[in-house]
């Protein structure tokens, strides 16, 4: 009898199917160290046709599957547990078209985020969503998770930049969603698909919106003696009607870890918090916004405000922020990069509460986050080999989620639910809300074989109520 691996090898070639335990172990985790799952096998299709053929074969065999890009996800969203097959899309990495007059590009899902902006640069355009992992993460993964990034404050997150998709449904059928201009053909199936965490199908082609590279940029670093003062500066900037391209905050623990690493950016190590603010646009407007931002930071109590004078200085300031997670790797063997959202004005109170949680559970928590939109990233340093530490990190994470929800927030702003946040979904959604989500998923994937076991909790069989019977 022909094995599934043989069938898939017949589609993609034997070289692109992995079954050896050592090879599978490579794909047992993503960027989140607390979850591991081993797939039955890994297949690497090289084209949309091959993706569809693979999914048809899996449909015929009744086998579930999980799509994966670069594996940089931070919620365990791209983990597959046998008998599920992992469909890895990194071979599909062509930028197929940059259409400058229409400010759009057509790409395969395995294109790395940063390389898309590089391809658009000669046309004076760029792809705005910029997750911290942008040098590795793929557009397909960004679509699945509705990824964000520091510059999403002004330009919007992934969903605001996807015009059209070609999707392989779980039975291998191919469908085009959306249009080249972005208008939907019926209900907004593109908007619905973005952020569906691979549970509606696999995007095999993505049409993205590009935006002009701003002619002028100013990057400011403001340092504060208290997190509360930094939070006040954020509120003042936003209330003024200024929309910075990015408005990022780092706390003292993060600053010290960055400055002790090879990514040192010259942040003041005695500051309780720093704000990294970037304004962009045309020259005179940017100069006015930068001056006003500096004044607002000083009025809120900034001890100092530094403006990058050159592109190189700007790069260094951003390096500290974008590589902060890497710098944290020096503090411990493992790191959980948490993700939650709170109303912006609640940031100071929530940060104080997080500090109290960290103390209670004896866990080092370093905060680096998108202050402009209230998207927190508390980073918990620990050693996963120590069950006690792991348990304390899990408990602290749960308390942090609870206090963010109690502050009016949400359990994830850009990393997705995946496996990690399943247990928190009940904090923000009721049984009917989750029941409707499950039903909508089945409109795309009636057998629920695409990325099973994610987003909608089923552990106790009572988290959600079937929608049709509700």
């Amino acid at each position, binding site marked *: 009898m022909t094995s599934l691996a043989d069938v898939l090898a017949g589609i993609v070639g034997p070289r692109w199917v992995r079954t050896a335990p050592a090879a599978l172990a490579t794909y047992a985790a993503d960027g989140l160290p607390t979850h591991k799952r081993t797939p039955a096998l890994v297949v690497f299709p090289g084209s949309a046709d091959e993706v569809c053929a693979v999914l048809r074969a899996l449909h015929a065999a009744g086998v579930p599957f999980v799509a994966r890009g670069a594996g940089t996800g931070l919620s365990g969203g791209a983990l597959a547990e046998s008998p599920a097959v992992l469909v890895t899309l990194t071979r599909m990495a062509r930028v197929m078209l940059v259409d400058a007059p229409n400010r759009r590009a057509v790409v395969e899902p395995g294109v790395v985020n940063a390389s898309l902006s590089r391809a658009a640069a000669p046309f004076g355009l760029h792809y705005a969503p910029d997750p911290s992992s942008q040098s590795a993460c793929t557009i397909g993964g960004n679509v699945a998770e509705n990824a964000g990034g520091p510059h999403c404050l002004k330009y919007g997150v992934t969903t605001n930049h996807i015009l059209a998709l070609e999707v392989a449904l779980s039975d291998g059928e191919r469908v085009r969603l959306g249009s080249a201009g972005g208008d939907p053909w019926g209900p907004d199936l593109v908007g*619905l698909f973005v952020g569906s965490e691979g549970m509606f199908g696999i995007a095999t082609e993505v049409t993205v919106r590009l935006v002009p590279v701003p002619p002028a940029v100013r990057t400011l670093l403001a340092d504060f003696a208290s997190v509360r003062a930094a939070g006040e500066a954020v509120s003042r900037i936003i209330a003024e009607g*200024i929309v910075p391209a990015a408005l990022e905050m780092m706390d003292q623990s993060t600053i010290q870890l960055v400055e002790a690493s090879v990514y040192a950016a010259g942040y003041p190590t005695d500051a309780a918090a720093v704000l990294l603010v970037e304004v962009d*646009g045309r020259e005179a407007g940017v100069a006015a916004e930068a001056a006003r931002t500096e004044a607002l930071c000083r009025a809120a109590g900034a001890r100092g405000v530094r403006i990058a004078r050159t592109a190189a200085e700007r790069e260094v300031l951003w390096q500290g922020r974008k590589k902060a997670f890497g710098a944290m790797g020096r503090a411990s063997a493992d790191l959980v990069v948490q993700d939650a959202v709170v109303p912006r004005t609640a940031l100071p109170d929530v940060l104080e509460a997080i500090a109290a949680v960290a103390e209670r559970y004896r866990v080092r928590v370093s905060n680096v986050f998108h202050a402009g939109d209230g998207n927190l990233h508390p980073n918990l340093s620990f050693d996963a080999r120590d069950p006690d530490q792991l348990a304390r990190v899990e408990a602290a994470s749960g308390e942090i989620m609870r206090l963010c929800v109690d502050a009016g927030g949400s359990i994830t702003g850009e990393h997705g639910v995946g496996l990690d946040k399943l247990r928190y979904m009940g904090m923000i*959604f009721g049984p009917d809300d989750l029941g*409707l989500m499950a039903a909508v998923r089945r*409109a795309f994937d009636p057998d629920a074989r695409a990325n099973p076991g994610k987003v909608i909790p089923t552990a106790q069989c009572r988290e959600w109520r079937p929608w049709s019977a509700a």
Partner: protein
Amino acid sequence: MPDRLARLSAEVRAAAGGRRRLAPRGAGRWWTGRTEGATVLECAADAGQLRVEAGDLVATAGAGCRLGDLDRRLRDERVWLALDPPGPADRTLGGALASGGAGPLAALFGPPRDQTLGLSVIGGNGTLARTGGRVVKNVAGFDLAKALVGAHGGFGILVEAHLRLRAVPEADATRAWTGALPDVTEAAARVLGAGALPGAFEVLSPELAAAVVGGGAESWTLLVRALGTAAGVREELEAAGAAVSGTRVDVLPPPGDPWRRWPEAVGALPVILRIGAEPSAWQHAVSFAARHLGAAAVGGAGRVSVTVPRGTVRVALAAAEPGALVRLRLECATRGWPLTLERADPALLSAVGVWGALTPTAERLTRALRATFDPHGVFAVPLLAA
């Protein structure tokens, strides 16, 4: 569940149980006429409570809230909502989100779906469900609001929305140029090619320009609006002016406030359709519309408005033949452009469908979604022609 929602829920449940069909109605200012075989379900009797958190740039409003009232309340707190669909100011928020049509502000801020952080909806089984949340960034669970905004009430009754607000900018100004359609087309392309990111960037047909801009706007008219700091606004408009120099368009005096007049001027006509073309091809969509619906109707008495950076062409007409609309839709489909019938009387909507010319798989998904949200087929909204 609040009493007002419990009442709606009970009515939907009863209709589902009795195999009756319902025609949801807000203020009755957009969809007019009676849908045959359906009972009108009044949804806007109670606007609910408006909660504004200006510091967080979010608000929560009942679907019955009137757009004009909402705008006034928000501006009192120095914030605003980038939602300017066609229609009168006493349209309801729920109706505006259900119809999903954007206005000129979509050029920078995106369509209504991008202003919607979360929704509460009563599905066709009478159940209240929530999606999204009250924060500006959120990826918890599937983003069902995307499917509901623009579904014309065919998936469920929108009862409450969490909205993304903006702080009122320091400056807000508009410049206008007028000329023959080919010249305005070229001018618009040059502004776009110069890297413009204006708040609004709209081309208006002569009849619409006369209603919206007045004062000498007797031909096709290009409007560019900038919002931000005074220096930034001045610079954006100067850049637009520099981009169009050398083209054969004439500069108009700065218009007063065309954007307040635009929604009523477009919404004054009973048939409105939207073509989703590309930013570089919108003029061809206008030509298609003129060919199928009549040059006099489209370029003359009709009102055409193009959101250039999105390639969206909106055509408002006094009347249209179903056959002509279907032929126009099919020709648009050959270019990959969807045509949405945003507004028409029930008979025309039933004949043409709000949506059409979907690929078989997209249509299957659409029907499956509709059957999911409304398992008993309660809502009498002709989304797809029979």
